[in-house]
């Protein structure tokens, strides 16, 4: 189908974009890569009256080192750029490992890092990975800017903490701590399809190889990224033996998540996948933390 008519603006600066969004309020929708928004408009599931296209704002597309050793990514940076960035591969390898799983190359050429996060699809990879990494989101409106931690950014199904007049402009991914490891896994019917279940983990070990910090974040099992709090609590302070990881993975899959069942996967199958994936990502993250990779 064809999208319904709309008013179109293509500002060339952030300030101009923020003014347009403030002026048009709820009628305005921000157009980033458009790889989710335009299909929904083609279906006429979304009928925004005004589109503010951010694609002509060069100051929103960059990958740079942060003062604190982390990496700052402009919201309009193409996913393909992130995938190919040496800075990302070196400083936030979890993101580097995840990028090829996001849709298909044609989509990543157009889709943006910030767009995927602000869209908050519960089956998307980046919200879970950003949560696992404790990313910080810089959002701006005409009245100022504020920072939102990933944990607070994802509110519900396709819903974020962004106010209608606010735009996500930058994401800061903190540098991995020493003695830390990471891993990402997902199961999809076909490479590039939405995952039936996916999981990202980060692990930080203390000097005696006990677990100091652990994050286990699922996607495609709820209304957004789902943190496996009970499983994490079982692992903190413990030595991450395969028995400990197995027990935590079972708790994560049986207690921490409440996955939906549909034609693609039953609830029982999603729980099974969640257990297997938790085990894999926790083991891989632990191995990497020990070996220092």
């Amino acid at each position, binding site marked *: *189908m*064809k*999208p*319904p*008519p*709309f*008013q*179109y603006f*293509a500002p060339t600066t952030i300030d101009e974009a923020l003014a347009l969004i403030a002026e048009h309020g709820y009628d305005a929708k921000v157009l980033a890569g*458009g*790889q989710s928004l*335009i*299909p929904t408009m*083609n*279906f006429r599931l979304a009928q925004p009256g005004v*589109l503010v*296209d951010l*694609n002509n704002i060069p100051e929103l597309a960059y990958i740079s080192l942060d003062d604190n050793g982390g990496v700052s990514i402009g919201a309009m940076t193409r996913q*393909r750029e992130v995938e190919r960035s040496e800075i990302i591969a070196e400083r936030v390898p979890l993101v580097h490992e995840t990028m*090829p799983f996001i*849709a*298909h*190359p*044609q*989509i990543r*050429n*157009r889709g943006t890092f910030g767009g995927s996060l602000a869209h908050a699809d519960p089956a998307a990879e980046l919200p879970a990975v950003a949560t696992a990494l404790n990313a910080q989101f810089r959002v701006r409106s005409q009245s100022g800017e504020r920072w939102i931690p990933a944990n607070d950014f994802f509110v519900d199904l396709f819903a974020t903490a962004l106010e209608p007049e606010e735009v996500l402009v930058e994401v800061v991914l903190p540098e991995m701590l020493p003695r830390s490891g990471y891993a990402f896994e997902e199961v999809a019917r*076909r*490479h*590039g399809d939405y995952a039936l279940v996916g999981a990202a983990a980060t692990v930080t070990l203390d000097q005696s190889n006990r677990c100091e910090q652990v994050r286990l974040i699922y996607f495609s099992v709820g209304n957004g990224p789902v943190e496996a709090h009970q499983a994490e609590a079982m692992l903190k302070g413990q030595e991450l033996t395969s028995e400990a990881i197995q027990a935590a993975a079972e708790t994560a899959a049986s207690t921490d998540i409440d996955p939906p069942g549909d034609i693609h996967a039953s609830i029982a199958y999603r729980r099974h996948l969640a257990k297997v994936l938790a085990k894999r990502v926790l083991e891989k993250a632990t191995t990497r933390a020990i070996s220092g990779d």
Partner: protein
Amino acid sequence: MTDLFSITITINGTPYESEVEPRMLLSDFIRHEIGLTGTHVGCEHGVCGACTVLFDGQPVRSCIMFAVQANGHELMTVEGLTPDASEENLHPLQASFREAHGLQCGFCTAGFLMTILAFLEENTNPNEQEIREAISGNLCRCTGYQHIVDAVKLAAEKMAAES
């Protein structure tokens, strides 16, 4: 009626000027305004890959972009592979599809060709796994993909021999 926007898009080296409604999809612009009907439109929501074109050298789905967004940019469509449109001068990638039976009905083929063209520029000697990942964003309901994979391997050989 919303405002019309004046745009200039270079397609296969030729600049085209037009006035479009902002809601006009790039795929419709290419087919209906310019008349380059080699680009096919399948699902029109970014799933099937039939409408894939090169946008500044990178494959994108033209059905989930607006024509107005391509203003000032360069596109390549399947017609750009064989500028003189003669059977003798098929691009090696097209010739490989013909020889390896990489198509049956042909509806998806233009999208595959544009996807693979960009892929083979980056990876001149891909293995089967890499090929299957590269074409994962394009659907074909006839071939079962095996002959498409064969065609990509053949094209990689032909293109390596030519360069």
